[in-house]
């Protein structure tokens, strides 16, 4: 399959600071790829390199089969991390202007902008000036600006940051619709749950280096379900019996629930059935692999002993509650 986006050994430094090093990336056409990593990992720099807003010190970028994004501008949609609009311009005029610059016909851009705005819960803003809109509204307007010309490749830098949960939902629906249209999508986020939900594939970078590049399904396979979470109906019920179930390696009690670690290769369904027979459960579930865990694991092994590790872990813990 032809790659919509291909990076080979891309490097970029700002002064003495290396922002991106030896980045290889290949995204097949039609795939949705999440670019994840903590703040300052090099996500925005990588995206700017792809967009030819910055130019790499070394390495090669190939976009839609062309040597530079500059040659394929009209076929790319881009939502930069730094949102910007013409404050005095009306929303409709601004969107038509962007679509016009991307070579879209005025007759198509107008109705499509209107339709997309409505899908994102922004009815009736077409004739409002950009400065009269709230920050969250502007962000959705800008998102519309990035897809109004029906791009083949959509690059979104932190598309969900700063949005309320309802807007995030609406935005995800539109992204999913674009994906069905066959658009190749690359989006960056530091919220792992969003990547998990939308992506076919995940690329993690940390401190300018790619630390993971794998499809979601392969990730799920690789990180086999080896844990079962068990919450008893009666919080004070004794849970000692769980340890005797065949295949269970250990039981750890946490507030209100127990985590059962299984021996590799154990069938979780048998364990679940047996556990329900031992103690009456309120809830039993297989603990799915979470990107967060994978990421923390990756980073930990990569940067063992590094002072930034503590900061990173702290950062990820902070994100734990930020599920949108």
């Amino acid at each position, binding site marked *: 399959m032809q790659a919509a986006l291909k990076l080979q050994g891309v490097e970029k430094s700002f002064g003495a600071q290396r922002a991106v090093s030896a980045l290889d990336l290949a995204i097949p056409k039609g795939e949705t790829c999440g670019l994840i990593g903590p703040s300052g990992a090099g996500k925005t720099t990588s995206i700017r390199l792809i967009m030819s807003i910055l130019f790499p010190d070394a390495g090669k970028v190939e976009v839609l089969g062309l040597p530079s994004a500059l040659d394929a501008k009209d076929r790319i949609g881009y939502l930069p991390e730094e949102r*910007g*609009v*013409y404050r*005095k*311009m009306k929303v409709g005029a601004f969107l038509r202007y*962007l679509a016009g*610059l991307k*070579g879209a016909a005025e007759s198509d851009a107008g109705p499509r902008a209107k339709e997309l705005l409505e899908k994102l819960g922004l009815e009736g803003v077409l004739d409002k000036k950009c400065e009269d809109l709230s920050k969250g509204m502007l962000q959705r307007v800008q998102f519309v*600006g990035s897809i109004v010309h029906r791009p083949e490749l959509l690059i979104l830098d932190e598309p969900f940051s700063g949005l309320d949960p309802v807007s995030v939902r609406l935005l995800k629906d539109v992204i999913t619709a674009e994906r069905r249209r066959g658009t190749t999508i690359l989006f960056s986020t530091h919220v792992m749950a969003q990547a998990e939900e939308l992506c076919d594939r995940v690329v993690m970078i940390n401190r300018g280096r790619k630390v993971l590049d794998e499809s979601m399904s392969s990730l799920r396979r690789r990180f086999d379900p080896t844990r079962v979470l068990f919450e008893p109906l009666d919080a004070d019920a004794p849970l000692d019996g769980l340890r005797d179930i065949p295949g269970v390696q250990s039981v750890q009690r946490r507030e209100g629930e127990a985590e059962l670690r299984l021996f590799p290769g154990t069938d979780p369904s048998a364990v679940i059935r047996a556990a329900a027979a031992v103690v009456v459960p309120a809830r039993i579930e297989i603990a799915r692999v979470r990107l967060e865990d994978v990421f923390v694991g990756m980073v930990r092994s990569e940067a063992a002993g590094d002072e930034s590790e503590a900061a990173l872990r702290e950062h990820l813990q902070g994100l734990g509650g930020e599920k949108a």
Partner: protein
Amino acid sequence: MSGTLHRIRLVAAREFLVTVSSKGFLFGVLIMPIVGFAVAMLIPKIMAQRGAQVNVEVALIDQSTVVAGPLQAELEPAAILARRAAGRRAAVQQAAPGVSASDAARMPNPVPEQPVPAFTIRELEAGTSVDSQKSWLTAPSEDKRVRRALVVVPVDAATRASGQADYGSYELYAPRNLTEDAEGALHEALRQALTVVRLRADGLDPQLVQAATRIARPRTVLVSPDGRQQGAQGLNRALPFIMGIMLFMGVMIGGQSLMTSTIEEKSSRVVEVLLAAVSPLELMWGKLLGQLGVGLVSMTIYVSLGVLALLQFALIGLLDPMLILYLLVFFLLAYLVFGALMQAIGAAVSQMADAQSLMGPIMILLIIPYVLTPIIGRAPDSAIAVVTSFIPPVNSFVMLARLASSSPPPVWQVLLSIAAGIAGAFIAVWFASKVFRIGLLMHGKPPSFATLVKWARMS
């Protein structure tokens, strides 16, 4: 390629429409000249509204004994009014030679008619000393409208002393509160009265002499080798400066909004969205052309206002249409140089305040030639004027001033100046494109000129 032109056209159209429809443009281009014009019309009116009619008591020490009678006649209100009208006619003819005396008399008077002061003469003994009248002159009067003056006419003011070629003169003493208008009328009346007395003493008819010395000033017809007639000298002298103002305003209006809109795009971060759609060069050219349109619109407004004013006074024939064409050509060249530089500055800084220090040198290059245009217009063939008409970015101002002057330069110099201007524009746009490309996404500490040059060399 057509995509590039399409994008440049879109950027230019947006830039033009947004600027032209902004309040700032309406205020700067339309309202400012109107306000300026209104102020220019109002100031003389305010100045002239000095007060109501005044009564002037003139104490006269007439040692010649013959001046009192004619002075009385010259201070009659009718005589004062007649002299005022004659003075105005002369002023109009001086400013616009070729206008007939009757036309000049019919022209609207921008200054409202002052009430004519009423003079009463009190003759004192010929031997009265000035000092003895001081207390009378400075004593506060009960009636606020009463002013006082003391005139001393020595004998030799009326009759020439034997063996002397020249006459003597009179003396006028007055307190501070004598109005300028009344003082002027009194001097003028004394001058007239003394002239009458002197002429009569020599047996001449004062009216005959007056008629003989009144000559209307005609328009000077300049003759050049190709036989073309040129306009009136009065207007021609002001023309280099007027051209300088036009050029300066056009460049400033276009360049300034070019810089602000670039800074705005940068600080509002919309530039990154734009750069995903257009190349920096397309963006730069689009903006440059859009604001060129803005500059052209504002200049068109000013030129039409000027032409309208000339039509109003039936002086349109005095303006050479070629000059408007030259104004257009040199505006284009000056705008490209200064506009590109100001745009580069806009791209290099993150906020308006940071732009000021970089703007300094540009403003100096813009203001000095503009201020010098009247001097260049007077000495259009001086060595420095000739040399600087080939040095961008000042060449546009210098050459235009020379073209507007009474001694236009030879054609080869005009062409050479245009060629130099084109070269200058190329260099400025090249420099700006380099700085523009690097500066647009650069935030933080504002760069110095040295940094800008480094950027240009780097990319």
